[in-house]
């Protein structure tokens, strides 16, 4: 036993898969201890805020201001307002009104803006330009106004008695606050989703729930498969006939179709994550049964089983001590595959909108479902679905890697 474990942990593939899996588990366990926010709380008013560090504007005004004279501050400020597409659009306009192309340099922000201010006139008609493009130029022009100004901004507060605005402070362009001194800073490493929820916190919780669903489904499927496989393989005869009949029945009906039908008939309100896990478990034991049965059939005529019979052991004793230990490693591998497929099946079901009800917990599948319904993939809001896909892939990858590693240890013929 100890020796086998040593061998298992010498298999590079197993160790890699195991490390990834343990890392995922640790994140799932430790993250909620640090960030204790409810994972489904809506914090953002609006959809799909980009990943980043959100600094409270109100608090930064009242935080101590420091003056830093940095040369490139103005250029950066303008650059961040003036994107690459806008620069090319400006160039197009300038070319259209007759400025030679050689005189235009889109990387020189100051010169480009100067040329724009001198040559842009909303009244100019350029042939072939659509109305939409014209409106775009008007919007662009408005956003550029004051971009080169070096004035500060005044902060004014309404006097509660006279309702007159009274200036309390001015902020100049070289004012800085130290983020550490701002009372409210929220890091959203993966932004927010369509409901305005923190995607990372939600993702961690979803991973936890999905792992639980996979585990419950995998354990149920493996227990059923193991019991039926042992009985059918060892007892044989009539028992085998009945079990194989049921197994064949389940094989003929694709389990995913069955799953869809059952999920659908349970109804949205009663579909909790546990229910879904149980339903997945009860529809995916078939191949474990078949695999265990064929293993047992090859074992039951072995001499050590005969010797155990001759020692007067009962059927149960023989199954438990002379058959099961020989297939235990195989069962562990089957369990790992069942867990990983349970997670994938839940994701598949949820994407179809037949997963757990959406009100109490997130799952990886539900997050995919939400991202799809709110068209995150079309709008380019990658942070709402890409990390979910990566997580699903990592879980499946780590488990399959563990499985391959185990396979190599337990089936020496596969060892290279």
């Amino acid at each position, binding site marked *: 036993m100890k020796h086998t474990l040593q061998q298992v942990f010498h298999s590079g593939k197993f160790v890699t898969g195991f490390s990834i899996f343990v890392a995922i588990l640790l994140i799932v366990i430790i993250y909620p201890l640090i960030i204790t926010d409810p994972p489904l709380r809506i914090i953002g008013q609006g959809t799909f805020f980009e990943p980043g560090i959100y600094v409270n504007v109100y608090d930064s005004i009242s935080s101590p201001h420091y003056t830093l004279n940095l040369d490139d501050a103005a250029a950066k400020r303008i650059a961040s307002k003036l994107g690459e597409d806008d620069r090319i659009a400006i160039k197009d306009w300038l070319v259209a009104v007759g400025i030679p192309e050689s005189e235009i340099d889109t990387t020189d922000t100051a010169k480009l803006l100067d040329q724009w201010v001198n040559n842009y006139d909303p009244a100019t008609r350029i042939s072939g330009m659509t109305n939409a493009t014209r409106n775009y130029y008007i919007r662009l022009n408005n956003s550029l106004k004051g971009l080169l100004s070096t004035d500060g901004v005044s902060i004014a507060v309404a006097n509660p008695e006279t309702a007159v605005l009274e200036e309390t402070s001015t902020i100049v362009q070289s004012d800085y606050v130290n983020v550490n001194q701002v009372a409210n800073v929220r890091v959203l490493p993966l932004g927010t989703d369509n409901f305005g929820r923190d995607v990372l916190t939600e993702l961690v919780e979803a991973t936890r729930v999905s792992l639980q669903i996979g585990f419950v489904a995998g354990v149920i499927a493996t227990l059923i498969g193991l019991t039926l496989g042992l009985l059918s393989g060892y007892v044989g005869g009539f028992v085998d006939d009945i079990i194989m009949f049921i197994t064949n029945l389940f094989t003929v009906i694709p389990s995913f179709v069955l799953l869809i039908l059952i999920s659908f008939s349970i109804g949205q309100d009663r579909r909790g994550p546990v229910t879904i896990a149980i339903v997945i478990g009860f529809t995916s034991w078939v191949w474990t049964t078949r695999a265990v049965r064929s293993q047992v059939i090859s074992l039951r005529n072995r001499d*050590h089983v005969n*010797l155990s*019979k001759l*020692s*007067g052991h009962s059927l149960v004793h023989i199954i438990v001590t*002379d058959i099961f230990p*020989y297939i235990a490693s195989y069962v562990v591998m089957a369990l790992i595959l069942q867990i990983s497929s349970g997670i994938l099946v839940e994701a598949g079901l949820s994407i179809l909108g037949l997963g757990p009800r959406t009100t109490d917990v997130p799952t990886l599948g539900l997050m995919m479902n939400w991202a799809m319904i709110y068209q995150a993939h079309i709008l380019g809001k990658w942070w709402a679905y890409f990390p979910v896909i990566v997580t699903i892939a990592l879980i499946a990858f780590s488990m399959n890697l563990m499985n391959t590693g185990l396979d190599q240890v337990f089936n020496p013929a596969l060892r290279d």
Partner: protein
Amino acid sequence: MSSEKKLCLSGSGVTKVFGFGRNTTLAVDHVDFNFYEGEIISIVGESGSGKTTLAKMLLGLINPTEGEIYFQGEKRDISTHRKKKEYWKSIQAIFQDPFSSYNIFNKIDTVLLDCIRMRGGGKLPYEQKVEMMTEACSFVNLKFEELTNKYPFELSGGQQQRLMIARIFLLKPKILLADEPTSMIDACSRATILDMLMQLRDEIGMTPIFITHDIGLAYYVSDSVYIMERGKFVESGSADDVILHPKEPYTRRLISDVPKIYEEWDLSTV
């Protein structure tokens, strides 16, 4: 003389067919036999002739497709687990391959304690069990103190087969089926194993049934010999009759494969 001989195991028309449909194998084909108590019996045949299959039917590990097996003159009844257990107190076996005969997850102690329990000694104090196990091991020249808490696969093939004999020593069955007990182990251990089996026979008064492909061995040890060819007993009788005056060409061929048969038999070549 013959009126004193008591039947211990006999069979009529015993047949085993494996598989069904077109892929059937007739492993044992309507064999009749009468094994008497106290005799040493050998069943000789080349590989694949159905010896192991017959042995398993005699042991009650598989059911005959056809025919009846009689135990001590009466029809054998092993329809329930309890009756089987009772039957297995009287008949035990040593298998061909010691390396696959033991459960690799069980320690040697478990193997021997099972035998004591089988003989109804499950409730004895542990010291007494150790005494019995030590006795059994020393009978086969093994030291129980060195074996305890070890696994059978840590022993050599010869030692494992000796442990098997220690098992029989504890079980004291009336009949022992030894299915090629020496064919998978090194030449040096073979003579020891055979010696021990013969010694054990004298000690506990059992009837050994040797199954072998080696007619020389059969001649050396047995009183009556059954020659098996493709599932059938083609010739049977006392060892001298069958081997010194063979009637069947098959028997002659088996004999010609063992050149030294009429000479002084050298145990180390068994």
